[in-house]
């Protein structure tokens, strides 16, 4: 393992301390619960929005806490959902008279922690609602898994409900808006390399130099198929052939198009993919309303990318256009 790290078990707390110190007072940090939250939260006139999830996906979610985005993030260790205590204590601390919204990516560990945490909060008369994000088209729904995974499309859910909450939307309205985004967002990821969780100390899986994993999960879970790497044009075809028919996105639709880096791919490559995807979509009559090209949801240092499409209506367009202030990303 070749990483900037002291004790691997302290990787997450030391990272969180860095986020806190870099925020210049905009964020607070509670080390007991891996909790990063807005210094001005909770606000009695606003629903508090919390995401838990595992660490290792930065900037998701501790680095997107700020005005118009999340009020708090309480991640577990790298690639592990938070303990119930983090969820319960964070929700209590962020409790607002307007209620608390939990955004949960659809994984067994995250769901279990947030379900139990919500039950404990409700016993304390805290009003909690949950949004379950499941945008990954690589996983087939079946009776025995928890279903599709939540991946980079999660960003759009946070952006939309974050903007609406800032304007005073009720908890019920946020649930409606969030579920509308979830119903219209689809993602596929492709990995070119593996990644190494600090505690594990070795790569999560083996992949040859000339191979790629199509449909990778954000914790290195395998996807649809392992194949030889192909050209960028063919990779964009793989992305679009999986994502477009899934909703389906149709000629005349307007979309937000995200090319998300998985942690170890240059932003130049991401823009290269973006350009190809943009042209191919427009040639299918699908209009790109807004572009997102960067790292939004990563898997440590994994090389690779995901493509997300969100079909937008006037309400979602308005919310995506709202400003957001994430303190550590100020230029």
């Amino acid at each position, binding site marked *: 393992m070749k990483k900037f790290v002291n004790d691997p078990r302290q990787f997450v707390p030391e990272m969180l301390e860095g986020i806190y110190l870099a925020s210049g007072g905009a964020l607070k940090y509670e080390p007991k619960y891996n909790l990063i939250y807005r210094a001005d939260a909770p606000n009695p006139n606003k629903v508090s929005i919390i995401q838990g999830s595992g660490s290792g996906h930065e900037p998701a979610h501790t680095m997107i806490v700020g005005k118009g985005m999340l009020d708090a993030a309480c991640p577990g260790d790298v690639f592990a959902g938070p303990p119930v205590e983090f969820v319960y204590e964070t929700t209590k601390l962020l409790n607002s008279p307007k209620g608390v919204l939990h955004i949960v990516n659809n994984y067994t560990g995250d769901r279990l922690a947030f379900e139990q945490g919500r039950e404990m909060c409700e016993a304390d008369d805290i009003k909690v609602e949950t949004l379950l994000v499941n945008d990954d088209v690589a996983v087939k729904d079946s009776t025995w898994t928890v279903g599709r995974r939540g991946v980079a499309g999660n960003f759009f859910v946070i952006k939309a409900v974050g903007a609406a909450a800032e304007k005073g939307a009720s908890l019920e309205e946020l649930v409606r808006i969030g579920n509308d985004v979830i119903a219209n967002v689809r993602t596929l990821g492709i990995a070119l390399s593996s990644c190494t969780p600090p505690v594990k100390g070795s790569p*999560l899986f083996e992949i040859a130099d000339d191979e790629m994993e199509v449909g990778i999960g954000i914790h290195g879970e395998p996807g649809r198929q392992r194949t030889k790497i192909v050209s960028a044009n063919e990779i964009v075809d793989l992305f679009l052939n999986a994502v477009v028919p899934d909703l389906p996105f149709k000629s005349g639709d307007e979309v937000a198009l995200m090319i998300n880096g998985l942690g170890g791919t240059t932003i130049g490559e991401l823009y290269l993919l973006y350009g190809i995807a943009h042209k191919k979509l427009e040639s299918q009559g699908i209009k790109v309303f807004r572009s997102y090209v960067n790292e939004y949801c990563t898997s440590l240092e994994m090389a690779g990318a995901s493509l997300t499409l969100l079909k937008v209506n006037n309400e979602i367009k308005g919310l995506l256009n709202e400003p957001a202030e994430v303190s550590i990303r100020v230029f």
Partner: protein
Amino acid sequence: MTATEDLDLILKTMANTIVANTDYFCELDQVVGDGDFGYSLRSGFEVVQAELETFDHSNVGALLKKVGFVISSKVGGSSGPIWGTAFLRAAKEAGERIDISHEEVIAILRAAVTGIMDRGGASLGEKTLLDALVPAIDALETGLAQPGAAADHGTAAIQAAADAAVTAAEATKPMLAMRGRAAYTGERSIGSVDAGATAVGVILQSISGAWREAHA
């Protein structure tokens, strides 16, 4: 020994075993998981190890409940809610008893199994800890029904349960993982033992050893 003293011994042994096997449990989880199973379990059981003496020992239910709270609060990933719920359901079944019959021990363990199934949605044969735990409880029930069970304080029955768990854990090797993160690996999960089931075998072997020593 009273039932709460016996339970104290079991919990202490369990916590010591989990802390001592942190790295081994992580290694088991590296095959199809992300290798943090040992650390996850440890983060709850090291609290049990350090603070067990201070927990309410007035009855079996109270002691189990406290452990259940600690595990579900401290352990991240899916292990916290699953192992925590097992203890909380066992606590509910045990109630305020201070003495426990062989039949009641089995009922308490079955309640824990039902809790695990409810929380995680798993059933037998899906390559989870249940595949070692349930055969172990079956063996314990059979053993405790033998004529000599009272005379040896259940020592032989507990050893039979631990052996059943180890055998059953080994038998998870050819199974296809159907739950949790390993399920995403599909066919690739075949050929390696389930980490949770193997941990159950290791823990029960330690408990059996400690039990034999205490009741010799």
